[in-house]
């Protein structure tokens, strides 16, 4: 019998099952949709670069960018590539790697169960050859070069190198042109054996499908492969000090005007689950109240021409690290920085009012409901939260449970000068 997660406000149900040896499968039926979307993801991202190889006891440090490289190469098969098999069925397939996870996915309007079988098979059957690994280096080098010209990407990673001294979150997800040259098929296989065991993975399917049939099909595919049990994966992260690596970093690029990002590093980390979700949501309420589109500060800055409507604030809450980033393009990054300091200081002194707090909570509730139009949003987020031991369906309950005191405490505690770094992109001067 499958288990059920339900949310009465959303009017959605998720059917789920844990399949031996430890794969979790979730199915959310969306009646009336043509598209069916499935994602098969692993807890293996760019920060997992130091670990004990599964079943071997060897402690290994791998070149930066391995998780992303492996993602590219898993599409290769002995007799061609997986894209073609999905294409024949009219499906479109893709994958992505971030700091903590890698996800393989497809979407289709026809032949869903055949596509699901292909997804299950290719993710469980690596085929790496020296030749294809070498060829991929040229492609990934161009991917890295593309991001090198992207000011948003550069300012973000520059900021992370300021916030973090040791933690691998400070490194580019794709690695560097130099680090990927060190990758070979042996390294890929070692990573694969460590992180692609079913007990480190999960599947999410959403669309007009039959939950029982999906779960049964997954169970059957997995059971035929005779997996051994995998013990706990030993990931080794460096001890990250609470202090910043730097408080300022800048770079010149071909841009029309400067860009400013300010980051605030979370010092209290090491937990996940509902407590982590709570921290994330309370930070979001605070950001929206103090810096959101209807805030006094945002509108003062906008009217002064110091920010544009792309100015944004966001929060990242992982078990191992967490930070908040605010910023955008500006003609005067020094003045904007000053005004933000003053404005945040003022907000800390005045505190968020009960009315403002309720207002932003209500807005976030609406935003959450709206996002459930998108199958991709549901599946990708559900798994991203699941991997942090959070049930995404509790979002609205946790939001409703937040208190004004918590919000004001977070506001005064998190946005302090000691855990704040600045990253700037400045226009390259014409030669």
């Amino acid at each position, binding site marked *: 019998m499958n288990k059920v997660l339900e949310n009465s406000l959303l009017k959605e149900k998720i059917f789920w099952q844990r399949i031996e040896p430890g794969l979790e499968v979730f199915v959310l039926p969306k009646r009336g949709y043509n598209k069916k979307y499935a994602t098969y993801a692993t807890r293996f991202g760019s920060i997992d670069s130091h670990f004990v190889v599964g079943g071997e006891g060897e402690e290994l440090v791998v070149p930066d960018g391995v998780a992303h490289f492996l993602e590219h190469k898993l599409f290769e098969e002995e007799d061609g590539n997986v894209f073609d098999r999905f*294409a024949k069925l009219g499906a479109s397939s893709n994958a992505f790697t971030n700091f903590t996870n890698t996800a393989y996915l497809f979407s289709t309007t026809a032949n869903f169960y055949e596509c699901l079988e292909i997804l299950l098979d290719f993710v469980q059957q690596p085929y790496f050859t020296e030749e294809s690994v070498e060829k991929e280096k040229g492609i990934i080098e161009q991917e890295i070069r593309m991001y090198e010209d992207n000011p948003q990407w550069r300012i973000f990673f520059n900021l992370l190198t300021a916030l973090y001294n040791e933690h691998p979150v400070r490194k580019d997800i794709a690695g560097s042109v130099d680090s990927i040259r060190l990758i070979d098929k042996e390294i890929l296989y070692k990573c694969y054996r460590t992180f692609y065991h079913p007990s480190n993975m999960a599947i999410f399917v959403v669309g007009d499908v039959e939950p029982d049939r999906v779960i049964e099909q997954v169970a059957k595919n997995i059971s035929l492969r005779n997996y051994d049990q995998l013990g706990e994966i030993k990931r080794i992260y460096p001890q990250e000090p609470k202090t910043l690596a730097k408080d300022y970093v800048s770079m010149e690029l071909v841009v029309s005007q400067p860009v400013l990002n300010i980051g605030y590093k979370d010092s209290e980390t090491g937990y996940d689950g509902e407590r982590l979700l709570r921290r994330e949501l309370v930070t979001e309420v605070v950001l929206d109240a103090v810096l959101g589109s209807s805030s006094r500060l945002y509108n003062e800055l*906008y009217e002064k021409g110091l920010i544009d*409507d792309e100015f944004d604030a966001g929060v990242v809450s992982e078990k191992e690290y967490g930070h908040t980033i605010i910023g955008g393009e500006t003609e005067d990054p020094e003045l904007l920085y000053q005004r933000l300091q003053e404005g945040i200081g003022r907000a800390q002194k005045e505190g968020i009012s009960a009315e403002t707090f309720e207002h932003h909570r209500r*807005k976030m509730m609406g935003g959450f409901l709206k996002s459930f139009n998108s199958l991709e949003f549901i599946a990708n987020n559900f798994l991203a939260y699941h991997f942090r031991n959070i049930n995404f369906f509790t979002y609205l309950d946790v939001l409703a449970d937040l208190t004004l005191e918590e919000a004001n405490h977070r506001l005064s505690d998190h946005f302090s000068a000691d855990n704040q770094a600045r990253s700037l992109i400045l226009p390259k001067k014409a030669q």
Partner: protein
Amino acid sequence: MTNIRRKRLKNGINLYIHPTSKFKTILVQLILHRHLKEEDVTACSLLPSVLQRGCGAFPTRQQLAYKLEELYGSELMADVAKKGERQLVSFTLDIVHDQYLPGEGDLLRKGLSILREVLTDPVLEDDGFKAEFVSQEKEQHEKVIQGLINDKHAYSVERCLQEMCSDEPFGIFKYGSLEKLKVISPASLYAFYRRFLMESPTDLHVSGDIDMEEVVSLVEEVLDFERADVMNIPATLVKKDVAEVRYISEELDVNQGKLVLGYRTGLTYADDDYFPLLVYNGILGSFPHSKLFQNVREKAGLAYYAYSRLEKHKGLLLVSAGIEVKQYEQALDIIRRQIEALAGADINDEEFNNTISGLRNQFLVEEDNPGLIINRALDGMLAGRDEDTESLLSRLDAVTRDDVARVAEQVELDTVYFLTNKGGAQQ
């Protein structure tokens, strides 16, 4: 299957209703059409930002933002787009459906009322818009125009189109020019706004779990502002002979070169041969199984992205790839050989069949996104092609390889644009 219901409102706005129960939201989109021309384009793209600064009932940006957020985070977004030689200004209202909000019952009416206020009751001063709003938004708009260069991919595509269509309206940048921006005054922008609101052909789309009759009476009541006869918008220039291929290269301090090739097809969404062209484009470059991805990326390892796409109202096809600067000749050669292969009907079964299946998938998933549902209706209206998914699918299934070979003959290279690094000029 989506079915559209239409009605012309008393003031001449064309109402399109897309009833569907599968979404959590109601999406409202008001679209005003203008002819893309030098003297109007800048004012037209600046205008929505000025209107969003406030209105009679909510006279500041902050009050307006707060009011919208109060409706469970409703959003009012303005956008400027170019389809063929039309400039389209859209105001989009994205609202949570009441049925997910216990105790709520009137969000659509409240949202539409704000839209009407923003559109028809701007903050005025002397003989024009409030001067402060206009001067601040002019500064913001200047940055938008200059900011194109921050996204090198978008920049390279736009630059190719500008060069290729330099003597056609289509070559006009949708945000206009700094020269025209400078001379806009609160009074001149207000005068333009009056004409804009009165005479632009205007569509109103509403998609969601809604009742036709209720929505008709609601919008008749709320959006009842006065309008004049709508202006006529000239047809887009589609057929143009290419005398000689133009090669443009531009130097910037970049890490990756961007190669963009502009082709003319002479075919738009209004032509029945558009469907073979769609298949042509699919075989060439819109999927991972396509010739460009397979040959430029997978076989030669030259690029991370290499794709083609159509501009369906202007009859253009664009090829775009991000490459190492020194591999310009090799990449250009591989891309041209893919076009030649198609012209020589060198298409295998797999490429053909996978493309048809992939395109079927694309048509079907459009029905799962309220914005795409509206966009398809808009494209259909512009091209006089009023067809539902079933009919589009049957047109697709009827395409043969001979059809693809026939349209391949019409695809003609016009401009090769290369964004390269300093000292990396190719010619």
